């Protein structure tokens, strides 16, 4: 093996193990179940879920040796798609023309690596001017993408079981 080839191989290897970057885009079909909702199926007027996430925000964090560049609007798209699906599944009417509105913004995504990957996501909900902060506390996973999906599912569960959100939904 030539010396140049050997050095190139070592340098590439060093770069690979020293760290890489992830720009994972969460899918739109994340399942939030299981969760327990009170018996409120089908009640309430139609509701609009508005995405108020900053479309240009890309937040950087680290998890172990990987740097994560999280595009917040991609996270909110996945979160809202899952939330709307779960609400519809429980009998709530989702309509883009509804006067009843819940504003949702993903304001922060931070990866952590306490032995496994964990994604800590923060969401701001605004209902008739009242602000509610939601923080996820999902299970860590050996896979960074599974950890992110778990965080989104956890956020959905926390939103639909939030007392203030529920009270507004069934009104």
């Amino acid at each position, binding site marked *: *093996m030539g010396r140049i080839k*050997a050095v190139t*191989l*070592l340098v590439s*290897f*060093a770069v690979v*193990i*020293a760290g890489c970057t992830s720009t994972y885009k969460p899918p739109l079909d994340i399942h939030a179940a299981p969760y327990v909702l009170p018996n409120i199926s089908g009640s309430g007027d139609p509701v609009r879920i508005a995405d108020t996430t*900053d479309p240009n925000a890309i*937040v*950087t*964090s*680290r998890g*172990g*040796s990987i*740097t994560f560049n999280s595009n917040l609007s991609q996270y909110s798209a996945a979160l809202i798609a899952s939330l709307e699906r779960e609400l519809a599944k429980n009998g709530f009417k989702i309509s883009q023309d509804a006067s009843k509105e819940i504003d949702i913004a993903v*304001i*922060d995504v*931070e990866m*952590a*690596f*306490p*032995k496994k990957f964990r994604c*800590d996501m*923060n969401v*701001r909900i605004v209902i008739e001017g*009242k*602000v*509610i*902060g*939601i*923080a996820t506390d999902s299970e860590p996973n050996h896979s960074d993408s599974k950890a992110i999906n778990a965080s989104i599912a956890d956020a959905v569960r926390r939103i639909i079981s939030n007392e203030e959100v529920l009270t507004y939904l069934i009104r």
Partner: protein
Amino acid sequence: MKSKILVILSLMIVLTALTGCYVQYNTSRVLPDATINPRKTYYVISHENDPRQIDLVISKEMSAMGLHHVSTGPENSIPEGTDVIVLYEDRWMWDMTNYLIMLKIQFRDASNNLLLARGQSYRTSLVRKSVEGMVQETLVGIFSYDEKGV
């Protein structure tokens, strides 16, 4: 030829092992429009099972950094009029002795639980620091945040 490959493989293994021992980073973020200033009152929430009382270290360091209205205690005793609650998460590892591998600190609006700022310090065994050092590093990261990200 064979010996060269063996040398390269050995170097790769050593490099991998060393990289595993030497991971260190400090990340922070202050959210847009969020402010952390000395006029606000802060409450560091203690953990029930934290014999090291890291909440007291955080409170002391915050005071040393100019935030004068800082108190600590359990989650169910947040004083009235608290503006910001401070949460922390400490993760420990064993390598000859127990050491703090990860410390996360979050500042949240006490009225609505909204995240205002967060910091994380991560140090593996070879670059370990004391609790005080990790707390200081994490808080400095938050207070000197300039939208640089990592």
